[in-house]
Structure formats: C-alpha cells, structure tokens
C-alpha cells in the first residue's frame, strides 16, 4: 500500500506496510541516518524526530499514522557543511562521545527551543529527561543547549543593533 509522508519538507510516496514504524522507513527507505534504533520501546529517545513540531519516538510511530503530517529529522536542522544553530552549539561544546544518542538529543532539545526560546536549567533538564546517554555526555549536552540559547540571543541582539 502507498503511504505519502512529508520529511524535511519533501514528499515521499512509499509502498510500505502502514504498520511499519516510521524509524525503519526513515532509515531503510529514505536512507536517513539521523534517527537511530535504540530500544524500540520509547524508553531511550535515540529515534526522536519531530511530528508537526512535537518530539516523537519514531520507533513507536506507525508510518501509516503520519501520512500528510510534517516530519522533521536531524538532517532537517542542517548539514555538516551548513549546520543549524543547535548543531553548531553542539559542535562548539564537542557534545558527543560515541554520539549514537546525539541526533535524538538534538531533536529533543530543538523541540524545547522552538517552544521556549529561553528555558532555564531546570526546564532543560526536565525536558531532556526522556533521552538516555550511556557515555555520560550529559554535562556537555546541557552546556550545548544553553550555548544555543545564548547564541540565538546574540544573533537577535546583533540583528537589533543593525541600522
């Protein structure tokens, strides 16, 4: 059966079982590496993507349920050549060790910043609670999110200063 999904602004008509979790469609059909298989249970967040702007576990989401909805993956935030602001903040803080969790961390954090551009530390920690990291990179991830907040303010301040 054909399911049409919209990923990072592009439409894809796919001949798949609509019960297939979105994760496998992203990885195997669209060949997007960002969302990772971690648990298949919604317990670790490695597969996090945005569906209509909200963070979601792609491992638990049947592709048939997201037809026509806006899906965004870490590839939609930017590329290695042109990274987005949050990706730049992670790069500056070197916020990765093995990095397997990081694409999910980025998507989770981006959802917070889209909703609340100036979260405090407690809000960041509470929001990130769903995502697991085993290397212990948490401190750097927190610093990177705070840096992204500051960078955004800096960009805004710079724009406001322009004549």
């Amino acid at each position, binding site marked *: 059966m054909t399911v049409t999904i919209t990923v990072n602004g592009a439409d894809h008509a796919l001949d798949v*079982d609509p019960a297939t979790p979105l994760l496998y469609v992203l990885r195997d059909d669209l060949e997007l*590496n*960002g969302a990772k298989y971690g648990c298949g249970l919604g*317990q670790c967040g490695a597969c996090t993507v945005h569906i209509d702007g909200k963070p979601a576990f792609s491992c638990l989401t049947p592709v048939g349920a997201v037809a026509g909805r806006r899906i965004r993956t870490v590839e939609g935030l930017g590329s290695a050549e042109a*990274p987005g602001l949050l990706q730049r903040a992670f790069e500056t803080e*070197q916020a990765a*060790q093995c990095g397997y969790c990081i694409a999910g961390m980025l998507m989770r954090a981006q959802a917070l910043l889209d909703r609340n551009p100036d979260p405090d530390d407690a809000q960041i920690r509470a929001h990130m*609670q769903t995502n697991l990291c085993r290397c212990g990179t948490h*401190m750097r991830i927190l610093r990177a999110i705070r840096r992204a907040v500051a960078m955004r303010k800096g960009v805004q301040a710079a724009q406001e200063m322009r004549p």
Partner: protein
Amino acid sequence: MNQIPSPLSRRGFLTGGALVVSFALAPRAFAQLAGGGEGGAGPAVVAPDLKGSLKSAPWLDAWIRIDADGRATVFTGKVELGQGIRTALIQVAAEELDIPPTTVTLVTADTGRTPDEGLTAGSHSMQDSGTAIQNAAANVHLLLAAEAARDWGIPAEQVTSGGDGRLRAPDGRTLSYGEVAARLSLHVQAVPDAPLRKPADYRTLGRALPRVDIPAKLTGGAAYLHDMRLPGMLHARVVRGPSVGTGLQSPDLDTVARMPGVVKIVRQGGFLAVVAERQWTAIQALRHLQRAAYARAAQPPLPADGSGDAVAATLKALPARDIAIMDTSEPAGPAVRSVKARYTRPWISHGSIGPSCAIAQYVDGTMTVWTHSQGTFDVRRVVAELVGLPPEKVHAIHAEGAGCYGQNGADDVAADAAVIARAVPERPIRLQWMREQEFGWEPLGPGMMTELEAELGADNRIVSWRHAVWSNPHNNRPVGAGGVLAGNEADPPFPAPEGKPIPMPEGDGSRNSNPLYSFANTHVVYHFLKDMPARVSALRSLGAHLNVFSIESMLDELAAAAGIDPLAIRLDHMRDERAREVMQAAADRFGWPTRTRGDGRRGCGMAFARYKNLGAYCAVAMEVEIDRETGRTMVRRAVAAVDCGQPANPDGVRNQIEGALVQSLSWTGREAVRFAADRRASFDWSSYPILRFDDVPGSVEVVVMDRPGAPFLGTAEAAQGPSAAALANAIADATGVRLRDMPLSPDRLKAALGPV
C-alpha cells in the same frame, strides 16, 4: 582494495623467523600487554627496543604512507569507540611529521590494511598506538630530512620543517614532502632514537582540536556501521531464548517461512536466524518465533538477586583459586585502631545505547565482516574457525558502533552475521540485535566482593593492610569460535574456553587491588573464581571499579575513626609525587579546606587512584546533597584532576573523564542486573534504569595536568574507581552512614538512614 603493499605477509615472515623475542624474556617495562592483556596473546614482539606497538610492527610503511601530494595516510590497529582516539592519533602523527592535521588521513583497524595491535581496550590506545605513531612519524621525518639533505648536499641537521609540509635548507631552498617521499622507501625498520619534537615547538599536539568524527554525528552523516547500506543488502535477526543459556522450544518456523519477504531461515545446530528483504519483516518474523516457550538448559544457578549479602553468598559458594597479589612486611608500631569491612558490586550491564550490529558478506570463498568489536583481528580468528575458512579468507573491518565500554554484543553479532552470510552467499547480511537481546545475551560486568582490614598506629600511620577480592575472570574476550554464542550453538559445539585471570601488573579482578599508597604490611589476595554463574567479560576498568571503591572507602573509614582529614590521610601515605600533585590539584580546585562539612544533608568526599598503577592518575572530589525523605543523592558539583602525561587533546581528555565520572555515578548509584530463577530479568531501560538528566551532577569540572612531552598514560577508564568511592565518601560525610554495597541506591540509603 587499496594498493599499498601488505605489511601482513612481512610480519608473518618475521614472526616465523629468528627475530621473535619471547615475551617471557622481555623486561618488566614491556609487560604491558597489547590491549591491556585482554583478548588473545596479541601480536608477537619482534623489536623489543622500539616503543609502543612498533615492538610488534617495526616497519615504517605499516604505519605511515606519504603520497605524492604530501598528504599522509596513517594506519592504526586501534579503533574509534567514541573516545576520540581518531582525532588524538591524527594529532600525534601531524605533530611528529610536522604537517597540518588536515592533511592526515587515519585508517583504523582493518585486517587487510593495518597493523594488529590487539584489542582497543584497557586505556592502551595512546600508550600502544599513540606511542608507535609518534615514533614512526619521527622516523619518517628523519628520513625525509636526510633525503632532502642529500639532495641539497648539506648536513641533515640543517634541514628544518615549518609545519606546512615542506622541508627547508638554510639558504631558503625548499622541497615538498611529496617530492622527497617519492624517492624514499618507507619499508625500513624504525630506529629507537629518532628525535621527537620539543613540547615548546608543538603546533598540534596538546591542542583542543575539534574531533573529526563529530560533525557527521550531529548531522545524520554516515557515522556508524549501523548506517552502512550495501547494494543488495538483506536484513537478518537472530533468534534465541530471552537470556544466555535459554533456548526456544519448537518455534513456529512454518508460518515464518511463508511470510512474504522472508528470504531464508538459517538453522544450524542450535543456531537460528531469519533473513528478509526488509528489516521490519525480519523483526516481525523474530517476534512470531519468540512466542515459543523457552527453557534454560541445566547449568549452575544464576546469581542470587538483590542485596550485598546475596552477591557475597553467590561468590563465596564458588571454588576459588588463590593468587597472591602483594605481600610486604616491615616493622611498624602497634595498632591502636582497626577497621574491617566488606564491599560488593553486583553484575552490571554495558548498556550500549545502540544494540550491536554487524554486516557480513560471503563472496567467492572470502568472508568480509564489518564489525564494531574492540578486537577486529580477533573477529577474523573467531569467524575463520566458526565458518571453517582459513584466516586469510576472512577480512574484518572496523566500523564505528555505539559506545561499548568493554565486551558487549559486538563480537557475538559479528559471528552471528558471518554464520548467516555463509548460508546466504553473495548478498551482504545486516544483522542488528534487538534491545532485549543486547540485555539478555551480552557478557555482563562481573559481580565482585572484597574484604578489607586495616590498622592504624598511634601516629595515624597505617600499620597493616589486608585486601581480599573475589571475582570471576573479566577477560572472556573471544579469540576462537568457542568464545561467541554462535560457536556454542554449532553442531558439534565449540566449547566455551575456561576463563583465566589476567596477570598483574594489569590484572582483571585484581586490577588496582594493589594500593599505590605506602602501607606497612600489605597483603593482597585474589580469590579467582573460574566458574561463572552469569556470562561475564570485560566492563570498563574491570576490577578497578570495586577495588578502588574499597580501598578509598576504607581510607575514609579509617580517617573518620581517627578524626583525620581524608586528604591528609592520603597524602601522608603517598610517596608518588605525581599522585600527590593530582590529589592536591583536585582539592585546590574543589576548595577542599573550605568545603561544606557533613551536616546530615550535605557533605563532601574525595578519592584517588592511578589506573592499574601504570596509567593515568585521577583524583575526584564531590559535594552531595541528600534528600532524607527519599534517600535520593544529588551530586551538586564534582571536580576531577587527571595526569595522563602529555595530553594529545586536552578537551578529549576532559570529555573522557567527565563521561567516566557520570557513568560511574550511574553504575555505582543505580545499577544492578536483575535475575529470575531461569533468566536475566533486566531486559529494557525500565528493568535496568540508568542515570537520566535529572540525576546528573550540577557541574563537573576537569583539571588536566600539564606534563609537556611526558609519555602518554591511558586515561579512558581512570575515573571509574575514584568517582565511585568519592560518591560513597561524600554520602558518608553527609549522613554518617557508610554504604558498602553497590548500588548506593535511594532505597538503600533511605533504609540505612531510618525514619526521618
């Protein structure tokens, strides 16, 4: 395939010849084993005068190639595990070649291309490979300078380089590395004394260069083995019972065979796997087969679940072989105070965030395996024996996986994939384990216990110290087919080899049981337990986690009994100047003298170890706050100081120590694998919770000691033990309650604190 001449055939020739130097004859300084003594015997030492892994691979072209355009390709037998080694080794090579790091390409472990450096384990990569590449690059620079000097007719000492890939004569003439290298053969053996660049002149080494692997990891680039997509690739799932030692009874193969998209069911002896065109089909087939009942074969009982007493009872019931680790006696005054205590650690999961994965392809009699194992060359040996091929017909290539922190499922899944590929030739087979399979089948970090007894004299000197440790072998790394699950399931099975201890100075269960402190009358014994109630193997830092926890807890117990400051009792018994400086640096940055004193709710603790007494020095201090209602411990702030010799990349060192500290807080404060009577009962993140964002410290600060030009000391595991003990010591300082059984969980602390 690459066009470089294979260094392998040459090494084979050498190791078969008269140049082989028996390891037993090597002086003690060489007794540091490839990969920390884990895995197999490691490559033979053929050039004992050389440094690092050059001892076993002395030919320069095994390590470095300079292309005509001046770019360098550097080969290492070590692999990127997320520890940042790729960037650090590039920095080492760039520094000694004196070229920009952007012109260095690093090739990591590949049985067809790189030297065999044993396992990437035991915090050995900088010591083994970093040292080898540093010296090989210095050799290459020496040869390039000599060749340019010959061309110019000047003495070689007058040739200089400026970090831009050109050699310079005093009169201003220059030659590019590429031009000079084209006239040279690097197929020469390294000399031991090639001059190294002076630390004051460093351009690349010691700088916090951004890691080369991070951009792809932030943007969905192809960063992992899991991301490889080969033409015609099929997806497989392997089918077993819920945990090691269990089997499914009559799984419904008929239904699965009829499922559209299922290509093949592979059944050989006790091995069962399903292969499909699509990944989701393979998973659905697996789920259907898993509906069958399971049974556990007759085996020794699984470990008892729960308390420290249960861990101790399980271990003490096993037959032990006693190994003397340390025995010193010297005159000391009479004891006025004595403290005796038992410490335990339960079985711990590696808990990789990404379940293990491998790709295998069998074409024209050759098996290619892409693996994220820490032992790429061991994967070749295992697969060759398992599928009945000569080793030269197995090509194992490392590709990155999720962090493993020791032997997780990586080796098993590589073997599984190879068995499937042998049965389904031509097409690449991608096999990934499911979450519950990783939890159920991977080797665990062994449960352990120690008993310590120490005595203080009237002058607050320790007059006797006894340390006994009980442990299974931590080194069950597969070196043949019997070491992997698929081998045990073959018909006839390859039997699992008997576990053996790693000898000191590295040790396994005994690792770091020999205190670096100077105590009078020190007696340390390792009760080695070869019979394993649960499948176990290496977990980051091996026995050092519990041994350091025990030693450093005991020091605080003594200090508390005698009213001595915890820092003072450590400094009073430490003669190693670098150890003293690391402790002092952590204490200074932490503000130890003015720290919050234990008040029932808040308190501070510190701990120290030099990893294996051979690697990096690490001291940790932390401040905790206890919620007495719930028993929850919040680490307000932590400071670590580390001396790893010359840091190749200080930010890489900070990242490793920060991560190790947080991971150790999770192990020590939260984690224990649960067991039911017939299976492991931890199979997901709710039955095996680890630290989440709400529980990580308020802040972590890492002081990296400046040791210009000092030899590299392994760092990656150095913080596991000190962080664990600092947590226990801080909790004791805050509450007056000493927790000796891991995990130091909220439930246990609340029970120990009693009614609020």
